[in-house]
């Protein structure tokens, strides 16, 4: 069977990308194999580890579970799009300062997840451990951060550094 190719246009890290994609191609493979954005990682390809986490229209998503063809017009942010030129995103700097990684393979996903978790809390989105479900904004204490960052597995066990880094940005 011939592959079905579809022309799509989407914005990745502020730049428009227009290309024909195989309809079987995941958003993750589109980024990694076709757009030379290898920051998002393939850890399980099953939506179980979070290494592929990117922001889709501002919300975190597992890029391995998303089909590229379904993202016509979407705005994608990957770890490569977090920093402003040479200046690191504040959460990236906090990750460096708190040694929030070892091998670094889960790190891009952790960072995208962390950026989104900070925004979600500011927007008042509750988590499973939030006491006041009606609050306008949720204070990110350690328990909240652990809960909200548990979709991103780190086999090196850098969790304390990750919590400290996200907490530092939550306190800003």
């Amino acid at each position, binding site marked *: 069977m011939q592959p079905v190719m579809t022309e799509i246009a989407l914005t990745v890290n502020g730049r428009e990308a227009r290309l024909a994609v195989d309809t079987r191609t995941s958003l993750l493979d589109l980024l990694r194999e076709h757009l030379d954005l290898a*920051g998002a990682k393939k*850890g399980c*390809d099953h939506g179980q580890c979070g290494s592929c986490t990117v922001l889709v229209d501002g919300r975190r998503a597992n890029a391995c579970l998303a089909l590229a063809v379904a993202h016509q017009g979407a705005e994608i942010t*990957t770890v490569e799009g977090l920093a402003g030129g040479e200046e690191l995103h504040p959460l990236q700097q906090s*990750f460096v300062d708190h040694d929030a990684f070892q091998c670094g393979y889960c790190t891009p996903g952790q960072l995208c997840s962390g950026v989104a978790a900070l925004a979600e809390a500011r927007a008042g989105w509750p988590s499973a451990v939030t006491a006041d479900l009606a609050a306008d904004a949720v204070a990110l204490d350690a328990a909240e*951060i652990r809960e909200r960052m548990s979709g991103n597995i780190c086999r090196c066990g850098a969790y304390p550094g990750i919590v400290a880094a996200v907490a530092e940005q939550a306190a800003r």
Partner: protein
Amino acid sequence: MMAATPAAATPAAATPAAAPPATGAIGVPLARIEAREKVTGAARYAYEHQPDEVAYATAVPATIARGRISALDAAAAMEVPGVLAVLWHATAPRLQPVADGELAVLQSGRVAYRGQFVALVVAETLEAAREAERLVAIGYEPEEHDSLLREDHPGLYAPETVNPSFPAATSDGDVEAGLRAAAVAIDKTYRTPALHNNAMEPHATVALWDGDDLTCWDSNQGAPAHRATLAQVFGLDPARVRVISPHVGGGFGSKGSPRPQLVLAALAARVVARPVKLAVTRRQMWAVTGYRTPTIQRLRLGADAEGRLTAIAHDVVEQTSTVREFAEQTAVATRMMYAAPNRSTSHRLVALDVPTPSWMRAPGECPGMFALESAVDELAIAAGIDPIELRVRNEPEVDPHSGHRFSSRGLIACLREGAERFGWAGRDPAPGVRREGCRLVGTGVAASTYPVYRRGAQAFARAEPGGGFTVGVGAADIGTGARTALTQIAADALGAGVDEVRVELGDSALPRAPVAGGSAGTASWGTAVVKACRALRERLDGEHGGVVPPDGLRADADSEQDVADQEPMARHAFGAQFAEVKVDLDTGETEVSRLLGVFGVGRIVNPRTARSQLVGGMTMGMGMALLEESVLDPQFGDYVNHDLAGYHVACNADVRDIQAHWIDEEDPHLNPMGSKGIGEIGIVGTAAAIANAVHHATGIRVRELPIRLDDLLWAEAADGS
């Protein structure tokens, strides 16, 4: 580059002759050298190298556990647009024989375990390769298989040695007599399940041939060793093979030896005459990337009324495969942990129709110390003695097995400092009596240990004409912080600042060096780096007046002889781990509310990365205690929970208050840095500390890991059995 530390200020060229001044680069919490690359996504891992015209390969796993391939029909797969080749044993090129049979890929129709790679599809795109992979029709002649480990298996045998080269059995004195003479004795059996390393980056290779020159970007723990194996398999001069691995997404032992995808990628690239990428999928990792053998361990301990051991016996049953023997050294730590006049250990293996077990973080010590340290806790309770005090009373003066003196032995200091930090004093030993709401609370302690190994390595140090130094060593940084630690070690030896030193590693073109394994990386590579740096400094100052010549200046070093010449001694790291658990009476769920380790690991090169590594090991140990288990289905001979939804590793919410500390330990008998390895000791003893705490909380002794909800659901009714 990272900000330099205050200590990193001395300009190299201005340094006076004679002994280099200590810059104090060792011991400084320098941020990881490659931190910026890792947080920006710029760090490229193996699969992320994209040579022109690269093709994509996917591997086809066997669906029987034992038998032969009778036929393979690739016609449908070849019809998928973009498919370049389907390889199997009838069509794949022949390889040279290799010691590890797991690397003789596509060389025979034998199937030794379910999931073994039996065919390979190569295509223009990953999507086409994956579609074609499903269309490869394989006919099998299945045979009865036998995949389940049990202690009464008729095929059990004693191996000649256990890894790496220890005797399989030892006996000193008369254990039976020692047990008969004991005032208290225990005789219990402990079980640990198959465990999978599950580094976040699946094993992957990009292979590129240029004539007979082969380059592989590969995810591994030692590029030079992988090059040597590749050269052997393809019958090439090693000089024609290069393995490049600058960033590696974790290994935990599973990338210490070459895996089938390395050979398959190179094989496929040769056949299709294009570069080829191949990644093992997460699910395939259960079969082809190694795992920790399940163990069944009988522990017999006897002690007099004061808790002094009269006998220690540790008998291990574990598995290997029919492909090759892998004999985990599970009882080896028991040979030197505690003093007793009568001691014996043994290992027996059975070769099952399973994947070959392999290295996983602290092989031997990790499962073995779960059993020993659980048994010591049981003995302490039986003797009515505090478990710390019992360990103190059994501290040996010399290594009980070898008779060598210890280069340093910090066990008691770690236990004492840990007790102080954790708040052990005044602990009521009674189990099952502390309640917080609907949860039972308990605390436990266990000892950690890991040997201090060192291997010969080569390195160079070069003074650059434009200023600064380059240090090269075929080391690997799999997330350990090796690049950073070696930068500090080199700066210290050169009398230079860390910002003046650039370390190159992760490339087989660099001087030959051993793998990152056995917690010996820093010691092995560091010894050669120090030697090269000191030689360079001596020549620079002695022959060139401290001024770098126009072409630069290079010194090479080889530490093989230095390592061979070291005095025989018992060199080990020690530690103590303390756990506090809360067990929910309604759900049986165990929360590790506090985990604290204190380690005696010599001099700490970088406290920031060291703490992360120790905490990481303890976190994996927590997963071993409560979550991790690869469940074998005997009918299919395969692990059924082969993904991260079925095999649970500790996630962020599982880790609460976790702390790693160390004692000041000066040990002049190790290496120029005075350091002991820290990559593995963190996982040793953790599971026992948690199981001991669970017993203290609930009165239930769990001797089979992981500790499950249903082990504890009737906690309140437990009587301490």
